[in-house]
């Protein structure tokens, strides 16, 4: 058991996940920082999770503050309380946790003695909705910057946190690359329109550029993954095989903000898998990334992992070790991979075609053909799977009813393929409403209103008819609207988030707790126009609330990609084809780290596969130099 040191001389971090323990414990980012901080001689880190409403009621009734799960230390005693932001709908929980810690929810009201409130994770790439509540944000990879912050906070702590020094500390923090301190910036508006975000001091950078670790091989963490004694989601060993993704799906924020691709060396992955399994006692390992089938030599890696679980026996022996591969691309999932995975207990299989028609998949740059999908599905059924999940988005740019209905067609075809192999074949379609995200080519797109999303869900449902082999599940369109408020909101939206929290709107990720009317009421009460924030298309020259946060991507690369999307032009994967200078590498002087020079399975996207076969519109892969001509240097964000 790992027990963090309790010593008031150490710079102490409380790493908080603003959802329940069951959801938050497996989070890898939090575990990596937990380990790195506890390895430092001058720091200690503990963890906290949001108490469910029944426990919160008991805690408030007994005047118990938020406390760490490690040593039950009160949250208010820590130097830093840092939140992981992996989804927008947890924002009200962040406020609730700050309040439960006994800390004023607004940064401006905090005193020198109060803990610093920090936040990081993907949602920190648009920090503005939480700008009034969080003292500092970390943008990008946290491995290096967490140490730099500890140095600065530690020095301040040793100097006694004297009255009136908090402002100076925050200013020092703002000087750390990748650290955004919202109180160091003035924001001005012209009516509804945001016009300027300006640093208050000359030493505060006008653009906060994200942090990127150059080589994952330098960071073999977590080495000692936490093993919960109660059941949690993702209750298995997780090993990150690569970070970043350049498939270039235009809706995908993760793929845009985590570039470039950095593969972990295969030998290190093998070592982390075998050491991790032995230490934890788990019998399942998840090879994590944004698209694991793209890992160079994935079939060999899976084969070796499974074979090791069979006690080094014959390649056909059943294995005690299951491998789960999240985020599988269908054009890289082969019979070979399927056969290796299926030697152990079969894990769930999810494919994400994202859009029903080839036309729309070109728009979103998810360039997988129907044949790609069917051959992946065939691989899976032929290797003994009975059911799989297909993930789709609806409400995508230029989506028309035939595109939406094509989702049903794809699912039915997959189920039909399954029936060739097993009578039990079934397909679950999971349908999510598309929420445009900052730092993506779709950041200018006006989100579909909830009634339109609901209509599209009904369209798929009726197109499916009474097909007992295809089950449809969908995300509440109303929740997508609330997510849209926070996703592309500016600093003014913070008041609405606070309003929802004060009205008891916690755990908005949980359908039984979610209530759109609360959000509508909050927006109205704060004088904010929900339509303007969520459903409106943005123009090329409009200042966006996250323009002062740099994800490395040139703004005109994103705009050009948005125009290419509308024109139906595809974009190849630059890890296997020439660079089109999105900015992620060139701005940072770093490069992809990829072991294989070619795409797995000779996959699509500019790697020689004939994408036109059997389709109405062939995709056009244009050289990027033409598309992005005239991009001024340093035009990122």
């Amino acid at each position: 058991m790992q027990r963090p040191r309790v010593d008031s001389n150490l710079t102490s971090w409380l790493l908080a996940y603003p959802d329940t323990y069951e959801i938050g414990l497996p989070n890898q980012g939090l575990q990596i920082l937990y380990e790195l901080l506890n390895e430092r001689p001058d720091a200690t880190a503990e963890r906290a999770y949001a108490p469910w409403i029944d426990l919160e009621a008991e805690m408030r009734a007994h005047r118990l503050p938020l406390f760490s799960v490690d040593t039950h230390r009160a949250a208010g005693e820590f130097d830093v309380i840092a939140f992981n932001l992996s989804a927008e709908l947890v924002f009200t929980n962040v406020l609730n946790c700050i309040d439960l810690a006994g800390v004023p929810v607004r940064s401006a009201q905090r005193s020198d003695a109060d803990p610093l409130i920090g936040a990081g994770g993907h949602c920190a790439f648009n920090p503005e909705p939480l700008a009034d509540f969080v003292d500092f944000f970390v943008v990008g990879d946290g491995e290096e910057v967490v140490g730099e912050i500890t140095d600065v906070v530690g020095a301040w702590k040793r100097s006694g946190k004297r009255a009136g020094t908090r402002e100076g500390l925050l200013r020092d923090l703002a000087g750390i690359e990748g650290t955004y301190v919202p109180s160091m910036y003035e924001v001005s508006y012209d009516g509804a329109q945001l016009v300027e975000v300006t640093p208050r001091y000359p030493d505060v950078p006008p653009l906060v550029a994200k942090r990127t670790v150059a080589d994952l091989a330098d960071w073999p963490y977590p080495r000692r993954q936490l093993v919960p004694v109660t059941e949690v989601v993702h209750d298995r060993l997780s090993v990150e095989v690569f970070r970043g993704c350049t498939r270039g799906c235009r809706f995908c924020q993760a793929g845009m903000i985590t570039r470039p691709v950095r593969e972990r060396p295969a030998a290190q992955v093998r070592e982390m898998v075998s050491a991790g399994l032995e230490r934890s006692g788990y019998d399942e390992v998840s090879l994590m990334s944004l698209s694991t089938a793209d890992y160079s030599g994935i079939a060999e890696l899976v084969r070796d992992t499974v074979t090791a679980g069979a006690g080094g026996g014959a390649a056909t022996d059943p294995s005690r070790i299951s491998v789960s591969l999240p985020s599988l691309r269908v054009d890289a999932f082969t019979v070979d991979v399927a056969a290796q995975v299926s030697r152990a207990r079969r894990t769930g299989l999810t494919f994400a075609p994202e859009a029903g028609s080839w036309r729309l998949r070109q728009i979103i740059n998810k360039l997988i053909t129907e044949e790609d999908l069917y051959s992946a599905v065939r691989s899976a059924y032929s290797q003994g799977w009975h059911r799989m999940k297909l993930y789709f988005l609806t409400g995508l740019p230029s989506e028309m009813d035939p595109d939406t209905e094509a989702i049903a067609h794809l699912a039915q075809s997959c189920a039909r393929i399954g029936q060739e192999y097993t009578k039990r074949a079934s397909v679950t379609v999971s349908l999510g409403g598309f929420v445009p995200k900052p730092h993506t080519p779709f950041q200018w797109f006006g989100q579909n209103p909830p009634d339109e999303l609901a209509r599209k869900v009904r369209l798929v449902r009726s197109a499916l008819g009474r097909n007992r082999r295809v089950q449809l599940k969908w995300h509440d369109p109303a929740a997508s609207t609330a997510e849209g408020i926070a996703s592309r909101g500016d600093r003014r939206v913070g008041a609405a988030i606070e309003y929802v929290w004060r009205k008891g709107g916690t755990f908005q990720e949980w359908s039984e707790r979610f209530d759109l009317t609360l959000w509508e009421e909050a927006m109205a009460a704060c004088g904010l126009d929900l339509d303007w924030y969520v459903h409106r298309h943005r123009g090329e020259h409009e200042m966006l609330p996250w323009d002062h946060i740099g994800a490395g991507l040139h703004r005109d690369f994103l705009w050009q990609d948005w125009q290419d999307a509308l024109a139906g032009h595809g974009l190849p994967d630059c890890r296997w084809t020439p660079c089109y200078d999105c900015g992620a590498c060139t701005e940072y002087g770093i490069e992809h780290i990829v072991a294989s020079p070619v795409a797995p399975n000779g996959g699509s996207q500019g790697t020689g596969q004939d994408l036109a076969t059997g389709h109405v519109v062939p995709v056009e892969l244009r050289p990027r130099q033409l598309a992005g001509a005239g991009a001024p240097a340093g035009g990122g964000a």
Partner: protein
Amino acid sequence: MRLRVRFSKTGKIRFIGHRDVARVAERAVRRVGLPVAYSEGFSPRMRMSFGLALPTGYESDGEYVELPLIDGAMLEANARDGVGSDVAAAGPAIVCRSGTHVPCGDEPDLDAPSYCTLAAALSEALPVGMEVSCAVLTDGSGQSLQAAVRTCGWRFDIVGLAEAAATKAVADLLAAGTVVTERVHKGETVSSDVRPSVELLQVVGSSNRGAELSAVLSATPRVVRPSELVPALAPEHDMGIARRTHQWTCGAAGRAEPAVPSRCAQRQKETLSG
């Protein structure tokens, strides 16, 4: 061969449920690399069977899990070169990934040296609060533990109840012909007579919460919990912490335990912590 493991569940870990205990135990077995048999079929699972489920929140000194070992798990007598003559002399040994371990033997002589390393290895692999006190080999014949256990021994305290009041309450309960108490079963309130299930009940002293009692309650036809007695003993008071001390089977000579904790485990633990 089967390995019968007796373990405790005390402190904070008492709040995890039976299914969680099963998962924790499975991981501990894999951490030690104990060669336990798996089920056949598409979805092989580790074969393990537990004694009677312990109510969540209760502590215990007497939990059991039985683990069938794969063929070839035992170290052959002629293959023990290098294991050490002490170990070889101590009886059977089990080849685990983490090394060769010796289970507890029948040690009638409490002063005899013990070489059991298995109990300690399993304790090390379990969370704080779960300690293995005994790991013995059985031939796996006979009833399952769930069927064999007839009664359970308990210790529990009643918050804020004085010892004298407890003594009178116990006497009253034992003198009564029937003791009807209510409990919630599958969302419904059920009342039943628990008096026939009480084989033994006595006050043994006081804890820092209140009077402490010891009980032997029958496990058939259903397991009666100490908490069911508390409304009859002291309706105004709550039960503090309950701890299962024993799971008793019925042997030829009366009450017997599936496995008796040996001193070897404690001895090993001392060595490890020192």
